[in-house]
């Protein structure tokens, strides 16, 4: 096949690599649900109503809360200095893996955690850790908080990426000139234009929040845990007779997610209708500006503060020597924990690095091929392709990964680094595509015409003009993919069959043991790897093009 032929095939291959495993895995997971009265046994399990309610409750509450904070920040503050500050502080948090964020929050909130230590004994009177269920609380409040910490930065960045197409500044100016308050003007005139673009991201956040397993293990309740966490316990159980129950549970979990998505869709329609009715009344709603701005700013800063505190706590514990309750700080710092963790830490870090480098490199290559095919052959991706792109992010992981693992087991690839990297690719691809597509399409196409008029082949235009000019966004997209792979818990656990150990699987596995110092070392490294990737993605183009003013960000 010619290079052109291969390239033409790239978009279909990429969609196949993303949607194929989801669909095949889904079929594989759900089939046993109808065998060995899995469903009947599931319905007999007394924990089911509570586990299902936890999934729905924590998922919906955290989604609505993060959405409200992100919308509030943009509606009330965008364009101001406070907003710029919050954005600058929030965006790096996107690179923090879910497990690290959860562990950081756990280290803060636990009865023997940092907050209790700082406040004791002078404010609380505690001289030893109180017997309180703050963490892993039965209502899932800690889990909800953890999810909000991770989803606010994500939704905020998606929202900001959608803004340029919404013509926001002119619409806001128009609404202000008509006497509308800022928040009311934004909600009535800008949100309707922004929403369709951020809708898939909101759906993904809802589906993810309802089914996140790593966060639920660290922060969520036990006995019963959330439905997804319980399903994973069953799926990884050596007792094979419980597997049909797990499959039936996956079916229920899928149904719950679809029901929640349908509910959200109805809420959208209802709110849109309400908004139109409100707009017709002509009420300017200036009151909203007074309290929503400070409220959103407070919530945004709280997210930053808690995340930063959590990360600092992880770091401190990993270097802590003796540290008795209720001292606010350890007696001394040292490398004891690192030395003790090193034998396990080294191989896990290496495996994590290998998986992330492999899946990010592969994903970046595929996405570049897709985008180049799109430009070269004038292909226009339809709306269907966009939803396929979001499919792996919206489909609950517990609904298709077990089936995929089963497939891997039967074909003998289960437990290999390659199979786990392929599973990571399913989740890495959409993020790499989403972060690279906009800068790729924004590239000045006259450069390509100028190159062609000088006699350059399409290949030369790609390698010598477009690739170097887009190096920064390309490396950033690769770093995003790298960070996504580092954070993967369930695909590594299930496709790896317990034989592929990464920093993430190890940190989550250790979380129940309570050795904070060792957990701290794993979480620190888990955090350091993506940060290193992002630093490289920024530093490399800056160094290569240090003498090219036209290549600087914003030039």
């Amino acid at each position, binding site marked *: 096949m010619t290079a052109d032929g291969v390239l033409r095939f790239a978009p279909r291959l990429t969609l196949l690599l993303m949607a194929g495993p989801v669909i095949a895995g889904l079929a594989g997971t759900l089939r046993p649900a109808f065998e060995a009265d899995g469903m009947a046994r599931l319905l007999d399990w007394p924990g089911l109503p509570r586990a299902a309610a936890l999934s729905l409750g924590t998922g919906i509450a955290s989604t609505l809360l993060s959405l409200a904070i992100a919308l509030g920040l943009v509606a009330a503050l965008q364009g101001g200095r406070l907003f710029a500050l919050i954005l600058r502080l929030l965006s790096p948090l996107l690179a923090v893996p879910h497990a690290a964020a959860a562990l950081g929050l756990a280290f803060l909130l636990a009865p023997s955690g940092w907050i209790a230590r700082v406040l004791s004994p002078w404010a609380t009177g505690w001289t030893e850790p109180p017997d309180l269920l703050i963490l892993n609380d039965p209502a899932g409040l800690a889990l909800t908080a953890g999810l909000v910490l991770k989803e606010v930065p994500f939704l905020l960045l998606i929202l900001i990426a959608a803004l340029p197409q919404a013509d926001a500044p002119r619409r806001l100016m128009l609404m202000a000139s008509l006497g509308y308050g800022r928040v009311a003007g934004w909600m009535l005139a800008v949100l309707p234009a922004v929403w369709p673009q951020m809708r898939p991201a909101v759906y993904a956040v809802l589906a993810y929040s309802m089914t996140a397993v790593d966060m639920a293990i660290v922060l969520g309740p036990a006995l019963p845990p959330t439905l997804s966490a319980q399903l994973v316990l069953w799926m990884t159980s050596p007792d094979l007779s419980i597997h049909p129950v797990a499959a039936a549970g996956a079916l229920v979990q899928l149904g719950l997610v679809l029901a929640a998505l349908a509910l959200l869709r109805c809420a959208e329609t209802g709110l849109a209708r309400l908004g139109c009715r409100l707009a017709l009344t002509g009420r300017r709603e200036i009151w909203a500006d007074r309290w929503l701005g400070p409220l959103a700013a407070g919530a945004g800063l709280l997210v930053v503060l808690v995340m930063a505190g959590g990360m600092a706590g992880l770091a401190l514990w990993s270097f802590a020597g003796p540290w008795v309750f209720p001292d606010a700080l350890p007696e001394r710092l040292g490398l004891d924990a690192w030395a003790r963790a090193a034998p396990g830490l080294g191989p896990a870090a290496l495996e994590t690095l290998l998986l992330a480098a492999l899946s990010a490199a592969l994903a970046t290559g595929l996405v570049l091929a897709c985008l180049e095919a799109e430009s070269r052959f*004038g292909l226009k991706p339809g709306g269907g392709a966009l939803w396929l792109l979001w499919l792996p992010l919206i489909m609950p992981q517990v609904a298709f990964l077990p089936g995929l693992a089963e497939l891997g087991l039967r074909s003998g690839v289960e437990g290999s680094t390659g199979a786990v990297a392929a599973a990571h690719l399913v989740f890495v691809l959409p993020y790499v595509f989403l972060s690279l597509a906009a800068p790729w399409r924004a590239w*000045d196409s*006259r*450069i390509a*015409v*100028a*190159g*062609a*008029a*000088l*006699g*350059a*082949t*399409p290949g030369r235009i790609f390698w*010598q*003009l477009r690739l*170097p*000019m887009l*190096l920064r966004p390309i490396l950033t997209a690769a770093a995003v993919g790298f960070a996504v792979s580092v954070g993967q818990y369930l695909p590594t656990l299930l496709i790896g069959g317990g034989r592929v150990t990464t920093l993430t699987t190890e940190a989550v596995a250790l979380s129940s043991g309570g050795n904070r110092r060792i957990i701290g070392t794993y979480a620190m490294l888990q955090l350091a790897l993506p940060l290193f990737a992002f630093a490289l993605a920024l530093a490399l183009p800056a160094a290569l*093009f240090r*003498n*090219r*003013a*036209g*290549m600087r960000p914003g*030039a």
Partner: protein
Amino acid sequence: MSGLVLDRLEVRAKGMLIVALDAVVNPGEVLTIMGPSGSGKSTALAAIIGTLGPEFSLSGRLVLDGRDLTGLPTRARRVGLLFQDDVLFPHLSVGGNLAFALPAALRGRRARRAAVEAALAKADLAGFADRDPATLSGGERARVALMRTLLAEPRALLLDEPFSRLDAGLRDRIRAFVLDLIRAAQIPAILVTHHADDAQAAGGRILDPLGRPVPPGT
């Protein structure tokens, strides 16, 4: 036979005639296509350079030095292009921009470097090879862009309002420089513009996109 022949070149969109040109441009001659924006100038340009979108249908032929260009990709046409802006490649040095245009047939680092230096000297830009294009003045950038176009050894030249972004004093000088080089290179050129004085200075025939002569002074 040398020169650029627009042989009943017609472009339609949704059945409507947008471009209709039937002319011969001799080596060293500059044909001007003039008209207000939206009159089909850029469509005529896209038809000649070979970047017409799928929504357009093209009929007629385009022949350059006896070679039929119709249907050839842009890179194989050997029609040089000067944009309204210079469109220099921001990641390459000035010398890198010029070397990009040099034919691959010219081998050896030293020979290529010499060709670049010679071109720069010709444009009064000696010693500029290692400069960052972003640090150049408007006039310098325009000259680099022209030299880059010429180094690819085009058999015809297409000028897309190349002077309209320059301020008045600079504009006359750059225009004279470009037109002199075209005459010296003895290649046919087409200038697309909506400025009457550019059209006058080019000194050739002036047509609108539908091939009708535009009387001087309009």
